[in-house]
C-alpha cells in the first residue's frame, strides 16, 4: 500500500510540474510580450517598459518560470495588474464560494445517485427501473446552467423560497451561506447524478453476472444479499472512476453556473480577468483548478487501492 501511494505521489508531482509548464507557456510565452498585451494597443512604450520591469519580464522565460513556480509553492501568486492587489488574496476570497459549491454538488450527486442506481438495479426490467432510466436519460441531456435558470424561475421568482442570486458571505452564518448555494448545487448535481446513477446501475448489473455471484448464490445467499454483500463493492470500482471525472466537470460547471446566480466565485473572477486582459489572474485561477483536478485524481487512485486489494501490492 505504501509503495502504491508513493508511486502515485511521484506521478502526482510530475503531473503538477508538467501542467504548470503548459500553463506558463500558454499564458506567458505564447502571447509574446504579456506587458504589451495587458496594456492593449494604445499604451506608450514607456508604460509598457515600466510594466515589464514591474512584472519581472526582463528575465528569460526559464528564469521567470522558476520565479513563478517557487512563488506558487510559497503562496505568492503575484500581483493583479488591474486591481493592484495580491492574486492570492483575491483567489482566497473567491474560492470560499466555488469550492464549497463544487463539493456540495458532488455530495448531492453521490447521495442521490447511489440509492437510485441500486434501486434501479434491484428492480431490473421492472417499471421502477424503466422510470429511472427514462428520468436519467433526460437528466443527462439538460445543460446545468439552463436547469439553473429554470430553478430560479420556479423557486426564486415564482415560489420565492430562495433568493434569485448573490451570496451573503459566510459571515452571515453557515446556514445562510449554504442556503444561497443550494439552488446552484442542485442545478449542478442533478445532471451529474443522472450519469452516476446509470453507471452505478450498469456496474451492479455487470457484477451480478460474474461467476463469484453464482458462487455466493450457491452458498445460500438470496439475490438481494448477493448484491449487497458481494456486488456492491465490486461495482464501486467503475463508479469511483466516474466520481473522479465528475469533480472536474463540477468545477467547470460551478464556474459557469456562478454566472446564473451572480455568485462571487472563481468564475466571475476569471471572466472579469479575461475581459480586462489580466493574464496573471487567469494564469493563477487556471493553475489552481488544474491542481484541484490532479489532486482529486490522486485521491481516486488511493480510493481504488482501498477498495481493491489486488492494487495494493503493485508499485
Amino acid at each position: 500500500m505504501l509503495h502504491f501511494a508513493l508511486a502515485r505521489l511521484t506521478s502526482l508531482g510530475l503531473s503538477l510540474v508538467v501542467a504548470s509548464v503548459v500553463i506558463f507557456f500558454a499564458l506567458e510565452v505564447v502571447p509574446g510580450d504579456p506587458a504589451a498585451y495587458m496594456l492593449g494597443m494604445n499604451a506608450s512604450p514607456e508604460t509598457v517598459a515600466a510594466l515589464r520591469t514591474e512584472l519581472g519580464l526582463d528575465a528569460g522565460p526559464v528564469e521567470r518560470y522558476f520565479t513563478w513556480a517557487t512563488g506558487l509553492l510559497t503562496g505568492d501568486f503575484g500581483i493583479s495588474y488591474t486591481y493592484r492587489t495580491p492574486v492570492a488574496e483575491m483567489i482566497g476570497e473567491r474560492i470560499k464560494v466555488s469550492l464549497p459549491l463544487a463539493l456540495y454538488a458532488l455530495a448531492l450527486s453521490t447521495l442521490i445517485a447511489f440509492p437510485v442506481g441500486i434501486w434501479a438495479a434491484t428492480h431490473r426490467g421492472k417499471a421502477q427501473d424503466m422510470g429511472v432510466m427514462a428520468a436519467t436519460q433526460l437528466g443527462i441531456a439538460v445543460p446545468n446552467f439552463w436547469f439553473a435558470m429554470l430553478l430560479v424561475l420556479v423557486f426564486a421568482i415564482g415560489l420565492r423560497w430562495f433568493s434569485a442570486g448573490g451570496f451573503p458571505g459566510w459571515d452571515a452564518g453557515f446556514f445562510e451561506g449554504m442556503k444561497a448555494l443550494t439552488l446552484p448545487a442542485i442545478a449542478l448535481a442533478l445532471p451529474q447524478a443522472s450519469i452516476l446513477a446509470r453507471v452505478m446501475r450498469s456496474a451492479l448489473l455487470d457484477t451480478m453476472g460474474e461467476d463469484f455471484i453464482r458462487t455466493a448464490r450457491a452458498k445460500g445467499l438470496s439475490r438481494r444479499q448477493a448484491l449487497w454483500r458481494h456486488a456492491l463493492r465490486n461495482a464501486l470500482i467503475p463508479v469511483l472512476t466516474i466520481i473522479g471525472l465528475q469533480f472536474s466537470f463540477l468545477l467547470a460547471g460551478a464556474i459557469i453556473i456562478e454566472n446564473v446566480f451572480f455568485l462571487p466565485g472563481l468564475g466571475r473572477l476569471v471572466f472579469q480577468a479575461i475581459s480586462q486582459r489580466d493574464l496573471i489572474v487567469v494564469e493563477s485561477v487556471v493553475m489552481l483548478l488544474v491542481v484541484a483536478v490532479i489532486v482529486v485524481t490522486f485521491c481516486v487512485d488511493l480510493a481504488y487501492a482501498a477498495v481493491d486489494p489486488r492494487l495494493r501490492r503493485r508499485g
Partner: protein
Amino acid sequence: MSLLRIRDLDVSIHGKPVLDRVSLELAPGHVLGIIGESGSGKSMTALSIMDLLPDGSGMSGSIELDGNDLTGLSERQMCDIRGRDIGMIFQEPMTALNPLRTIGDQVAETVRIHGGAGRGEAARIAGDMLERVGLPREKFPPTRYPHELSGGQRQRVVIAMAIALQPRLLIADEPTTALDVTTQAGILRLLRRLVLEDGMGLILITHDLAVVSGNADHLAIMRQGQVVEAGPSDKVMRALRHPYTRALFEASSHQPDRTAGHVGTPLLEARNMVRDYVTPRKGLFGAHGTFRAVRDVSFSISHGESLGLVGESGCGKSTLTRAILGLEPLQGGSVHVDGHPVEAGQKMPKDLRAKMQVVFQDPYGSFNPRHRVGRLVTEPFHLLDNPPKGAERKAAIDTALTDVGLHPDDADRYIHEFSGGQRQRIAIARALIIRPQLIILDEAVSALDVSIRAQILDLLADLSGRYGLSYLFITHDLTVVQAITDRVMVMQAGEIVETGRTEEVFANPQHEYTRTLLAAAPVLEMSA
C-alpha cells in the same frame, strides 16, 4: 433410500428445450458421474437441482432430496437449502471467488448466512475447513485474498465454502477442467476423501471420461438433453450398450492411423534457447527484475516428424512457440529452419516465415470476425512474393478447404456460422494453404469435445502423410501426445527435462517430473 432422486425433469430456456425427461438417482456416500459433451445438458441438470437456472427458464418434473420435493419450494426455502444441504463447485476457480474479500471471510459466510454461528465461531470453522481442504493456516492464513492463490488453491477454497456445513449433497461441475493434471489429481483425491469422511453424495460432472473412471460409482451419459445410458460404473464401462456410449469411449482413446517412422533430414534445429522477460520494478526506485521463461532449450524436428511438447501451464510452452515463430526475440541460443536462422521482427525473410504456420487453441479467437473464410484462409499469402490471384486464388482456397473436409462454398461465409470443430478445420486450412513444412499446433485440440477431437486428430494424421508435414504438438494433454507424436519432450519451469520416443517415455519415464505427470493423468480403464 436414495439421497437424490430426479424424475422426468424437463427444462426449457426461453421456450427452447434443454433437458428432456432426465431421471437420475444417487445414494448417500456414493459418487454419480455425469458425462457429456458440450450442450448435452449436464450443467443445466446441476443448476436445476440448485434452482439457479438462468432467467427465462421453465422446469417440470420432480427433484427429491431425502424424499422432499425441491421443485415446489419458494426461493426463500431454496436459499436455506443451498449451501446447507447442497454445496456446489464450479469450473472456473479464477473467477469463482469475490476478489475483494478474504478467503476466510468468504468461507465463513456460508456458516454465517445459515445462522450456524457468530462471527468468531464462523471464522474458526472457516479456518478449520480451509485446513481440511489442504490449505493449512500457517501457509495460507484465512486473511489471504483470492489473487494471492493459484487456481488449484482457489478451487480448494471453493470446496471449503461448499462443504463448510457438511451438506448432504455436493455437486461438482467440471471441477478440474481448468486445472493442470497434477492439480487435478489432488482435487479429485480431496473430493473422494470428503465423500468418504462425511458420507455425502457427490455428483461429478465432466466431459472427460478418464476423470470419472475410477472415481464414480454410477455413471450417467448425457446427450442433447437426454440421459442415454445410466447404471453402475463397471457395468456401463464393460457393456457399452448404447452406441453413443461406445462412440464416446472410442473417441476418448482414439488412435489415428498414421504411418510413423519415415523421418527425414532435420528441419528445425533449436540450440540453447534462452528467453527472458522483464518483470515490473520492485518498489519505487528498484531495478527491473528478469524472469527466465525458457532456459537453455535445445531440440530438433526432422522432415515428416511429429514432435510433442508436454508441460503444465506456465512452464514456458507458449513462450517457446513464439520464439520459434520469430515473434519474440531470444536472449540466447538460436533457432534454424532449413539451415536459416530465425530472427524476431520484420527482419525475418518472408520465405523463411512461409515454412512455418501455426494453429491455436481457441477456435473462437483465432479469426477476425469481420472477414469471410476465403479471406481468412488466404492471409498467409502475404508471405508469398507472387500470391495467386483470380482463378488461381480461388483454386487454392478450394483445395485448402476440401483438404480439411469442408466445402469450397464455405469460403463466402463468416466465421460465426461455423462450429468449434469446423473452425479448427479452417485454422488448419489457413496454416496449410502456403504448404509450410512445419505446423505448430498450440493446444489445437484442447478446447474440443472428444468426438470432434478424434476427427481432427485423424485429419492431422492424414494431412501429414499426404504432404509430408512436420508437427510440433504443444499440449498439456498426455493422451493427445500419445495418439499423434513420434517423439515427446517434457517441459518443466522453462527446461526440457526429458526427451525420447513417445512410447518409450510413456512406458519407462526417466525423469521424476515425467513420472509425476504420468501418475497424475487420469487413465480411462477400458474393460471391454
